[in-house]
């Protein structure tokens, strides 16, 4: 038996809170006849009104439709690019899926370039497909990332933690060190500070924040800024 907020193992039954019996199951949960069982070890989370999921240390990315990911172009063939997004299979990216691209005006993408893109198709049995435009044809921040900066890889659960509104990491860092950032749900973060040294400091700060709570994060940020400014 596993309650909300507790740590469970695969096979544990979950205890339903006072909902009307209709619940939504997220990753790590499965319905078996009349019980709901956990299929991976981790912390059982709950969100109002009726969503349950399991959160755990996770390095392999499982593509989900609509998520923003950071990939590397590995191959060019005909009218599609192959993009490695860290999943079990490479995603395909059409050359028309860029802002302002037409059949005559091809986007300038080379092998080894990094693209920040959105997953359009992600299902169990087909190849994932990514695009660099939104439904209205605008880039909206997506596209090839070219002007410097560094990419780091962190576990997927860390990404979710950084992006959650409760986490103060990005705000506290940004108070004293301006930076540009692109966060992919596949565990890749591209970041660019003012100088090389600042970028390195930022990448290390993000990487080491995985097991910290908000107080520790703000303390770490303060220390980092002090050491960067030479105190």
């Amino acid at each position, binding site marked *: 038996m596993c309650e909300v907020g507790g740590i469970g193992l695969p096979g544990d039954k979950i205890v339903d809170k006072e909902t009307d019996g209709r619940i939504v199951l997220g990753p790590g949960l499965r319905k078996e006849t009349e019980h709901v069982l956990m299929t991976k070890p981790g912390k059982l989370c709950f969100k109002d009104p009726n969503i349950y999921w399991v959160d755990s240390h996770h390095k392999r990315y499982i593509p989900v439709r609509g998520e923003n990911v950071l990939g590397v172009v*590995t191959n060019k063939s005909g009218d599609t690019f192959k993009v490695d997004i860290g999943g079990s299979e490479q995603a395909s990216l059409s050359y028309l899926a860029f802002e302002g691209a037409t059949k005559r005006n091809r986007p300038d993408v080379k092998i080894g*370039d990094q693209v920040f893109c959105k997953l359009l198709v992600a299902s169990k049995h087909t190849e994932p497909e990514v695009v660099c435009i939104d439904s209205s044809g605008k880039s909206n921040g997506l596209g090839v990332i070219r002007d*410097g900066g560094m990419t780091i890889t962190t576990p997927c659960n860390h990404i979710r933690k950084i992006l959650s509104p409760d986490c103060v990491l990005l705000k506290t860092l940004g108070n004293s060190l301006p930076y540009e950032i692109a966060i992919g749900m596949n565990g890749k973060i591209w970041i660019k500070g003012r100088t090389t*040294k600042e970028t390195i400091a930022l990448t290390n700060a993000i990487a080491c924040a995985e097991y910290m709570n908000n107080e520790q994060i703000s303390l770490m940020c303060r220390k980092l800024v002090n050491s960067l400014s030479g105190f």
Partner: protein
Amino acid sequence: MRDIPFSNCERDFIIQAIEQRSRLDGRGVYDYRKMQLTFGEDRGCCQMELGNSIVMTQVSCEVTPPKQTRPSEGILFVNVELSPMASPTFEPGGRMSDFGVELNRLLERCLKESRCVDTESLCIMAGLKVWTIRVDCHVLNYDGNLVDCCSASAIAALAHFRRPDVSVSGEEVTIHTLDERDPIPLSIHHMPLCVTFAFFSQGKYLLVDPSLKEEKVMDGKMVIGMNKHREICTLQMSGNMLIMKDQVLRCSNIAVVKVTEITELIQKSLQADSLARSKGQPFGFPAAIETRKVTANEKKSEVIDVVGIEEKAEQIVQCAEESDEERRRRRKKRRRRRLE
């Protein structure tokens, strides 16, 4: 499995950082990552951690006939195992990749051809029986610079290893078990250690102990095998670059400092281990686990009810004694029946 692709922006950034004399993990140009050496409960078992690169080495021995060409010398055998657990790019199965072969050969050259282990003392009967010492390096995690990590863990494991004692009387060879006689350490003359230098921009910049990302960007590397007496045991250069003579000399001077540091670390850990063993303190891998880490599990101490525990224990002992007596009686009965 295919390699994890490396983007142009990472490549450019790493080179840019190196040009500004800074590294991704905040180290200096000549710094090693954090090094940690743990010995196992068994003799000759040692785990070396160099940052996130982890190598575990196990030394074992067996009696074999010697090589025809060297009838009075023992055999030292070195093997490196690259399992897919260490990195998805390593292939499973017996076939070794080019990288694996290079690593194995380099390690073999460093350990065997420097004659750090006295092979003549491993001879039991000339031409008939010698000890074969087997060094197995298992790579548990790969984050660059496996050569240094493997060589340090291999030599530390060799120094930690004890072989069983043997006695020869005429043609007869007796191998004494560990209870009969204390096992004997191998005679190790010196400790050859490898130090890796990575070169960038045609040998203009050099880094000590390259991490995985730096290894992917470098033009080439040079490995210097050296002991603390400043004797060079191996020297290998790979990659496509040309470097100047004084650059090589500079590297060897840096290697002297690094080798002294690592040797000191190995000696210290060996001493700490033998002290813990002789004093009966906990040793081995379980003792090395830190409980104050997020990744470690710690069970909180529980309150145990001890009221009436003595009577309970006495009862259990009594029951056991009674059942013993019953067994004896039954055995006697059976014997009597058989006799009848």
